[in-house]
């Protein structure tokens, strides 16, 4: 009988590069930038690392395939290294591999590192990616904003929300993240905007405008995990531990069966249910202190707030407008600026979310510091609403 991951693994250290258009840096430089901070924070040497998990999604424009780019960039000591790729949820997938390795007892100290170098394509937005020879025969001519935009039409239809009201709530989501990023020196987009600017922006995919879409960034983030016992033996006293780590992957039901109405993300609901059970959380709307969700688009954040059980179905748009998820609200969301403004270097994003939760829990978040957060949640989504990978992770202080 599985007992879950709760409190079996502690975070020994974390690091995160500055995100943005890092024209002068290779992916390898970004890996080292995140790793060096992580190593100092953990207080160990490279030689102490027993194994590593490496996340990178877009090998077409990035470092290529396999785990070798990480091992070579960091000159890891010929240890096991695994590359994982689960679209935009790759970072959390790398973290899961590292956490499971420690929890199993197979390794003592394990590195998870995610990186993405997106700004070598020559154009804006995510790179074109191959979808497989069979999929290429019939799947629509789509982009990520086009797929996520459809959450809006389906959500508005299901909950009978006037499109203008929904658009305004979506705008507030982006305004809030821009406000939060002003206090984050590592964020990609640090500029205050207002709702009118969001509403006036050119449309990318109806109804998503430019400011409804997250930044496309270069960056890397890393975590080193170990057992609580080993962490203490290394002199650590305040320990952040993993309370829950769940991933749910679509099996084609949403895309192929009429039980899904397109207004929510089914996998997020499943992953959240399991994560709350694993962490012993009964009332997430009250117990979760703060969260970083996968706000690739404003509508994704809005729908996710319901999928995570933080707002009642059909009510997130009101909660957003009422300020519930602002920095000074009941459940601050994207306190570091989120994908929207911190940026979205795909393989790094899941670990970047954890980096903020980790620093907040340890009281190290500087001007962004929230008052005594207890539990932080990260939600990392890969793919499109109709078929995706959704991961939910909960972290908190180890008692």
């Amino acid at each position, binding site marked *: 009988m599985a007992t879950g991951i709760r409190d079996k693994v502690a975070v020994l250290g974390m690091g995160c590069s500055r995100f943005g258009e890092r024209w002068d840096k290779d992916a390898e430089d970004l890996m080292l930038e995140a790793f060096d901070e992580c190593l100092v924070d953990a207080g160990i040497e490279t030689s102490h690392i027993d194994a590593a998990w490496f996340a990178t999604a877009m090998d077409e424009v990035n470092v290529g395939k396999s785990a070798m780019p990480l091992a070579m960039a960091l000159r890891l000591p010929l240890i096991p290294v695994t590359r994982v790729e689960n679209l935009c949820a790759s970072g959390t997938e790398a973290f899961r591999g590292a956490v499971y390795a420690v929890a199993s007892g197979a390794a003592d100290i394990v590195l998870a590192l995610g990186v993405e170098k997106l700004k070598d394509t020559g154009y804006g937005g995510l790179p074109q990616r191959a979808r497989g020879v069979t999929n*290429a*025969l019939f799947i*629509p001519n789509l982009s990520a904003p086009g797929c996520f935009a*459809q959450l809006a039409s*389906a959500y508005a239809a299901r909950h009978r929300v006037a499109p203008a009201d929904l658009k305004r709530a979506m705008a507030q989501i982006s305004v809030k993240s821009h406000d939060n990023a002003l206090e984050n020196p590592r964020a990609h987009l640090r500029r205050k905007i207002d709702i009118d600017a969001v509403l006036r922006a050119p449309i990318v995919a109806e109804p998503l405008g430019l400011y409804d879409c997250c930044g496309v960034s270069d960056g890397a983030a890393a975590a080193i995990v170990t057992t609580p016992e080993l962490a203490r033996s290394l002199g650590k006293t305040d320990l952040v531990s993993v309370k829950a780590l769940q991933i749910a992957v679509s099996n084609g*039901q949403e895309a192929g*069966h009429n039980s899904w109405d397109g207004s929510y993300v089914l996998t997020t609901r499943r992953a959240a249910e399991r994560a709350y059970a694993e962490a012993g959380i009964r009332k997430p709307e009250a117990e979760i202190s703060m969260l970083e969700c996968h706000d690739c688009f404003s509508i994704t954040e809005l729908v996710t707030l319901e999928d995570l059980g933080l707002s009642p179905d059909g009510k997130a748009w009101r909660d957003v407008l009422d300020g519930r998820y602002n920095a000074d609200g009941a459940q601050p969301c994207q306190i570091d600026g989120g994908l929207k403004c911190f940026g979205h270097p795909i393989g790094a994003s899941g670990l970047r979310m954890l980096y903020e939760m980790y620093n907040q829990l340890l009281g190290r978040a500087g001007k962004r510091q929230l008052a005594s957060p207890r539990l932080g949640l990260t939600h990392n989504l890969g793919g499109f609403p109709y078929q995706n990978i959704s991961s939910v992770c909960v972290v908190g202080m180890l008692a």
Partner: protein
Amino acid sequence: MLGIAACGGYVPRLRLARRAIVEANAWFNPGLRSHAAGERAICNWDEDALTMAVEAARDCLSCGGLPEVDTLFLASTTLPFLERHNAGVVRAALALPEHMMTLDITASQRAGTSALIAALQARRGRPGAAMVVAAEQRRAKAASAQELSYGDAAAALVVAETSAPIAEFLGAHQVAVDFVDHYRGQHESFDYQWEERWIRDEGYLKIVPSALRGLAAATGIDAAKFGRLVIPTGRSAAQAIAKAVGAPPQSVCDDLAQGVGDSGAAHPLVMLAHALEQARPGEIIVVVGWGQGCDAIAFRAGAAATRRRAAGGIGQSIARGVADSNYMRYLAFNRLLVQEQGMRAEADRQTALSAFYRHRDMVTALVGGRCTRCGTPQFPATGVCVNPECRARGEQEPYRFADLLAHVQSWTADNLTYCPDPPQYFGMVVFEGGGRMMVDFADVDRETIATGAPVRMVFRVKERDLRRGFVKYFWKAVPGRAPAEENGGDRD
């Protein structure tokens, strides 16, 4: 009784105003100004001779109750493949049996009428039915007279021995003369034309009358009895031909020049389909095909001639046109313009032909699966049922979605992805009776798309691999109910 058992047609929705062409080009050739009247049918970026052929054939077959089609002739001079059996693509898209005769007939503007004659002659005394489809998307140089006069269209006819044809076959006569009024060499994109006055005097007015006299001799029907005379040579030449052979002037049918344009090898059959929709029982209908000689075919309209032949029919297809005055977009669609399309257009569009072959029914015929245990339709068909309550393995039977109605569950207009006519509209459509798919929309705009809106499926170009000359086809959703339903009398 041997004859035409069904007919249908397809004219693409866009109608380019000739004035737009003239205004853009009259600085170079002021003579174009005298041809500024009316509009011409043009393919959308995702239509070509094959997609139009499929839609015309579907329209024709929609009347139902036909003998089994065991032969398919496809006539066109603008087929997308010089080598790859084009009629085979049409057969597959129609989900007709693999064990049947299919044939491409090409290289002359007479291809349509010659295909019809061949089908009729081969069918005599045999059960079953042959389908003749003619479709043409004619390219012309910017600022040419042909750019103004050509039009894109398709027609389909089913010929069979049947007790009540909509038109009984009376006879045909064919003349082959190497009269080169225009030609297109093997590696050329455009036709090369000789002088119009010579074509009229030495061609139309000599060769067509001789063919019609031959027809009269073969059938014993005097030209004075002609009720409807289909001549695709332009109105004034057609009148002169009618006069020369003694046919009543009022028998000369509308050549559809004002609203459609000259659709080449398809045009005699497009005009015939149009004439059949209006014919009175017993009328003699004569069809002329022109091109390095002349075909002439005589029919007698059957008792059923006044009934609606197909769900849509060529008349409805013509009536559904949408005015377009964007000449630059027409040039871009037809690759007559060196246009910056952005780096996203550079993505490699190679087709894995082995994967395509494995999935040919899915891709070309829109066949998914239906679980025989729980009855759930699903696309694509897979080894495990998509129904979370079922999950039966290996229990799916082929299930065709192409003719099912659907509605829009969610949609977007995507400006980021590369599309020859941005934005790219796509979304989730849910089929009546079950099943769904995320699919591209075609012939759609901000006014016609909405959550809950009805859509139907059409065969279209998914993308063109211009690097390798391949065309990838799939199905798309277009707004509106099936034409069959629109015929119910309560059209929107």
